[in-house]
């Protein structure tokens, strides 16, 4: 029995006296597109922060393929195979789109200590970066200034930067937030394509229920810091507790 890709065991996290995450345990299986949903303030982002190393949980363990990664610094966790995008787009604004991806490639290859070779002349690096951008249909924007991109393109660029680190698990924190319906459709198709190609296992959190139910194979529901339910999208849709707490009061 192989270890699940990601396992969170009894994660509890306090911010001062406030309990943001209360005993959440879940697993993400390799290749299974998983979603985490919950109202604002349910603790989703805190949970992501814990899994990606931005926060050390007050209690609990996080395991990646059976290896304990709890409390490790973000750069180590990225090197071990978890990538994440942020709710508020986090890219290198003053660098070009190509350079954004090159940073991640250099970081991943551990080639950051090369002090002499010019990046601009490194053809293999350039090709690899363009390839990553190509997966996300951003290669035509390679020389553009990242800060000048549209909101939707910036989110795609962030995804490119994440993918450039060749992660096994990708945490997507509200990937379609702030996107137009068109952009949302494009991103959903992209994620489905990338997941189908076995690029990585995607673990996303979303507000847009259509996105979640259209993409996810497994859904976890958080409510007030606790795990309320888990199952396939159909299970979740039918779950009365979930309906009451999150999808709105239903008149039965």
């Amino acid at each position, binding site marked *: 029995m192989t270890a699940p890709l990601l396992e969170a065991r009894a994660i509890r996290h306090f911010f001062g006296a406030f309990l943001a995450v209360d005993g959440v345990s879940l697993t993400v299986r390799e290749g299974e597109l998983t979603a985490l949903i919950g109202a604002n303030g349910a603790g989703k982002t805190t949970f992501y922060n814990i899994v990606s190393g931005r926060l050390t949980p007050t209690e609990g363990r996080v395991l990646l393929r059976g290896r304990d990664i709890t409390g490790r610094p973000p750069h180590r966790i990225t090197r071990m195979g978890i990538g994440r995008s942020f709710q508020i787009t986090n890219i*290198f604004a003053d660098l070009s789109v190509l350079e954004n991806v090159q940073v991640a490639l250099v*970081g991943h290859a551990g080639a950051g200590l*090369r002090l002499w070779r010019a990046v601009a002349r490194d053809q293999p690096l350039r090709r690899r970066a363009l390839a990553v951008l190509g997966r996300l249909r951003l290669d035509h924007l390679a020389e553009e200034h990242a800060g000048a991109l549209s909101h939707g393109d910036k989110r795609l660029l962030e995804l490119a930067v994440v993918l450039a*680190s060749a992660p096994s698990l990708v945490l997507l924190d509200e990937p379609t937030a702030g996107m137009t319906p068109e952009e949302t459709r494009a991103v959903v198709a992209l994620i489905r394509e990338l997941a189908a190609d076995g690029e990585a296992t995607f673990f996303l959190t979303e507000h847009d229920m259509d996105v979640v139910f259209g993409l996810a194979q497994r859904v976890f529901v958080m409510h007030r810091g606790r795990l309320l339910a888990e199952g396939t999208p159909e299970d979740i849709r039918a779950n009365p507790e979930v309906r009451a707490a999150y999808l709105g009061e239903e008149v039965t």
Partner: protein
Amino acid sequence: MKGRPVLVPAVLLLVLAGLVALPWWGSYFALFLATEMLILGLFAASFNLLFGYTGLLSFGQAAYFGTGAYVAALLLRDIGPDFVWVLVAGPVAAALLAAVIGWFCVRLTEVYFAMLTLAFGMMVYAVYHQWRGLTGGSDGVAGFSITPLVSGLEAVNLANPMHYYFLTLAVVVASGYVLYRITTSPFGLILKSIRENAERAAFAGIPVRPYRLLAFTIAGFFAGVAGALFGPFNRIAVPEMVHWTMSAEPVLMTILGGSHNFLGPFLGAAVFLGLRTWLTSYTDQWMFFLGLILLFLVLFLPRGLLSLAEWRTRRRGR
């Protein structure tokens, strides 16, 4: 450097040619001034590796500059090795100091980082100022003569200002070139990413602190090169070379010339010193006018003088 791919190397070549030919078309005084401009230009460029490229504003770079000067002066006074060794020892000592101090400083960011570099810089100043036995206290280290570059090389006499100028030119151009290669290397790219978004860099697999420390050490090394040229040039090493007012000079020069361009600090140094020379011939209070110019720049030209040349370029970035 984007935007003017052909123009910049051409202008640079012209400037270099002019500098090489300086002893023949410039006055004795111009030679002295040019030597100082080159040295301080390198100092400012080393500062800019930290500021413009890594996003770290250090107010304590004089600690390394001054150490380069003091180590050079002490070696020349007490041991008298070939000058080439002085040029190695000064920067190495400066880099070691930078590594130690940097280890503490890179734990902080923004204002706190700046304040800590200031604190350490003044601590180093206090040491140089108080330790009469080693550093001569407020009198500094003097009474030494410049040794031959390499024993046996009779043709080069560094006591001759023209020869010293050529040595400075060679060292500064070589150092500048190395610094430039560093900024365009993968390491330089990582530094820029740290400047832009340190968190995203960490999430791209980059351990931020060690990179900052390495940048700090390299900056200290080249500040030491500048200092090792500066001390002997002035035939003295004094605590003022380690004081925070000395640390402020590369800051001013870089802002003046523009931190967004590799050559900005060099231009800033040239303009700063040129202004000082011109103004001091009229008044003792040249800082007043420098202050006015700086005020004007901050308010209206925050990207420095080179931004004037860049304004037509559509794309930003370096």
